[in-house]
């Protein structure tokens, strides 16, 4: 019997060792893979520059077939891609770009300065969607030779490289010059001609996309020969398919509670990084006493953001900074401190005479109890939970919160009627969140806090602070990056001092993939893993 057991034990150890070794060799991060199956949720139409549907992953998948003049590097900052040299005129109105001369569209035609000019002209003529907004301010383009072009602007625009050059795909003149109704024009999959690392060869609506590697790609042959994007109706079915390895990678963030479970599956890895989305508590300045900075600060002190991160996100988020900007941003001001301090919160409220005079545990302001409704959309479970916990925390300092879980439209209508801050606001406190774009470009911060709603068109709280306006105005005209960075750091300090909103946290973007099959994904800060860098040789990353 003993002998028998030994044999079994030996066999077990042996097989475990063999398995460990074999999976080690499989997990070579630079191995080429014949086929990778990725799960996406919902249909993205034919994914050409005018038909893709979502900003993420629609745009990201689009950019696997196309290239832009600049592309985002791992740190989320724009890096030259099709461009080898950029010269900006002193008046900031003319950009002279020198292009690479070795870039081909996948139908064999060369990508030249004429295509760049055509792209800008075409988007001006047919101002459709995101890219038309990107190039706002464009006046004309002047082709100097096949690989040199001048782009003229009507007036200087800050961050033009990021907005226009790193976002807009350069599409082929020889294909699109004949198209006069880009909105309606649906390409056949075979004519989706771009210069990117992948070529779409097959598309079955509501089923899948098949992308083939472009072997002539200028930045090197993609590491995955065939990329299949499988469509799922909802998240849970895609997760079920992932767990059985029917798909190899999820092109959508996984919720925090799934991280530990998926990590437990042998062969699965999780890659995590900043997404630059935010969770905020905003307070309406028109609703007394939120016009008092002491009250706003007291509320900020009373909320234990680390605890919220640990409880709601199970650690998969970064604690919010009072200065709005993510600590992982290269322009983060590390002098701005964010603390949780109940005693400080109480003393701040006391200092402005907001005290509990009738002994019911709730403070009073001008004779009325400090009781407010914190509204939150009822289709966002995490926000609902955040509101629930904040309610408990604020009760500790004598502020009574009722959580109002309302329909998405009601919520948006109360906070941001018709998406126009000039139309006022009708709330006391609200949960809020901005998508990644608002913060990924650090220099967009004035949009949230400038009192002039022309600049501060995302000013949802009604903040009006002279110092914030002054720094914002300087930022708008400042041209030298180092000085702009200095200003944006000052702005963070000013925002922390004014506390127009409370930045609770920046959720991370966790992605799950079968690392036993494919590894070496590129997590672009603020963008995630769905990008062309994840599939081209690492040596070619900008």
């Amino acid at each position, binding site marked *: 019997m003993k002998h028998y057991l030994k044999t079994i034990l030996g066999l077990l150890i042996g097989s475990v060792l063999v398995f460990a070794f074999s999976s080690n060799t499989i997990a070579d991060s630079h191995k080429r893979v014949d086929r990778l199956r990725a799960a996406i949720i919902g249909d993205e139409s034919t994914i050409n520059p005018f038909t893709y549907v979502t900003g993420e992953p629609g745009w990201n998948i689009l950019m696997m077939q196309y290239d832009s003049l600049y592309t985002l590097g791992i740190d989320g900052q724009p890096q030259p891609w099709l461009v080898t040299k950029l010269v900006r005129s002193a008046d900031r109105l003319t950009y002279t770009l020198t292009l690479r001369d070795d870039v081909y569209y996948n139908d064999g035609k060369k990508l030249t300065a004429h295509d760049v000019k055509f792209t800008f002209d075409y988007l001006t003529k047919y101002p459709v969607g995101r890219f038309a907004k990107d190039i706002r301010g464009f006046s004309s383009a002047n082709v100097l030779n096949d690989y040199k072009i001048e782009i003229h602007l009507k007036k200087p625009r800050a961050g033009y490289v990021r907005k226009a050059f790193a976002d807009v795909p350069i599409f082929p003149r020889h294909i699109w010059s004949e198209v006069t109704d880009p909105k309606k024009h649906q390409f056949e999959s075979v004519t989706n001609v771009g210069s990117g690392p992948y070529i779409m060869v097959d598309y079955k609506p509501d089923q899948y996309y098949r992308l083939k590697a472009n072997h002539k790609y200028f930045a090197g042959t993609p590491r995955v020969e065939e990329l299949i994007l499988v469509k799922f109706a909802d998240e*849970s079915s895609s*997760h*079920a398919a992932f767990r059985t390895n029917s798909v190899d990678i999820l092109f959508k963030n996984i*919720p925090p*509670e*799934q991280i530990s*479970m998926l990590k437990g599956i042998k062969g699965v890895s999780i890659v995590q990084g900043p997404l630059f989305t935010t969770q905020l508590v905003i307070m309406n300045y028109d609703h007394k006493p939120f016009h008092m900075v002491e009250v706003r600060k007291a509320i900020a002190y009373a909320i234990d953001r680390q605890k919220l991160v640990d*409880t*709601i996100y*199970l650690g998969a988020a970064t604690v919010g900074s009072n200065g709005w900007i993510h600590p992982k941003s290269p322009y983060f001001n590390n002098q701005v401190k964010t603390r949780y301090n109940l005693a400080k919160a109480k003393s701040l409220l006391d200092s402005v005479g907001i005290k509990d005079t009738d002994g019911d545990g709730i403070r009073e302001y001008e004779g009325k109890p400090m009781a407010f409704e914190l509204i939150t959309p*009822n*289709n966002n*479970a995490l926000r*609902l*939970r955040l509101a*629930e*916990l904040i309610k*408990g925390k604020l009760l500790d300092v004598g502020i009574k919160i009722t*959580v109002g*879980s*309302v*329909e998405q439209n009601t919520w948006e209508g109360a906070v941001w009627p018709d998406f126009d801050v000039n139309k006022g606001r009708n709330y006391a406190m609200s949960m809020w969140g901005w998508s990644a774009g608002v913060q990924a470009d650090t220099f967009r911060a004035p949009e949230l806090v400038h009192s002039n709603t022309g600049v501060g068109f995302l000013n949802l709280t009604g903040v009006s602070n002279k110092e914030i306006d002054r720094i914002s105005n300087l930022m708008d005209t400042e041209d030298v990056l180092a000085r702009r960075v200095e200003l944006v750091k000052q702005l963070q300090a000013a925002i922390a001092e004014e506390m127009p909103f409370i930045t609770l946290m920046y959720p991370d973007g966790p992605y799950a993939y079968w690392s036993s099959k494919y590894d070496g994904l590129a997590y672009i800060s603020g963008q995630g893993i769905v990008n062309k860098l994840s599939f081209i040789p690492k040596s070619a990353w900008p």
Partner: protein
Amino acid sequence: MKTSSLAFSENSEISIVSKKRKRKRRFNSGRVSGIAGCTIVTCLILAAIFAKQLSPYDPSSQSGKPFSPPSAEHLLGTNDIGQDILSELVYGARISLTIGIVASIVAMVIGTTVGLLAGYYPRVLGRVLMRFVDIILIIPFLPLLILLAAYLGRSLVYTVLIIGALIWAGTARVIRSQVLTIVKQDYVLAARTIGASDLHIIVLHILPQVLLLAVGQFVQATSGAILLEAALSFLGLGDPLQKSWGTVLYWAQVRGVFLTPAWKWWVLPPGMLISLAALGFALMGFALEQVINPRLKNNSK
């Protein structure tokens, strides 16, 4: 009545014996289910009343780590923000039972009123009301419920009203048919002849006769109302911050627990409590109906 009992005595001995047996069996099964139902309902109601004493923690406090499995401290583990699931369920009995009972009281009041009016004025008003009852009965139930809940918003009061407004039709029918026979009774005719007003007759002579029937309907409706509340809350159409059994399931769903081993202690117990409560009221309802419902009473004689 007399003729029927005469006919009874004319039957053969064997058939008398078998009928007696049948009656005994029915009586027993009704009694057993009644006792079982009463026990279940009583236990749940006691749990709801003594929730504070029975539950180990305050269900709204974060008493443990999020997503903890069952342990000595937390017998059913903790939910996504570290609240004790057992305490949530004990306190959940309050909301779930209250909504179920109040909603069926609402249904009983509407149903009895409509049934009384339709039975007492059968010609025009009765016809109109009963066609309306038919419409309510025909409408696909859950879609309408979801639509109403989504339109009106999420609060306890709305949940109660919506459920109540949709389940009264059955009660109305049963009451009406009973009223139709009562109005032909001699004492009602007598009251009418001496000039009693309609209101007087309905309230003093008819209502007492159908009240017991309404109570039986109410108990059965409660069973359905509890299930509906759970369905609404699970779909996120209740108030997700009120702790009912349905909302416990809702949070399990939105935090992806159905896919993890945690379903055993987070999904199964509230599911079983909902079934148990519905079963308890249903059993009680059946037993009551056998005693109260005149149709069933006549059959057994």
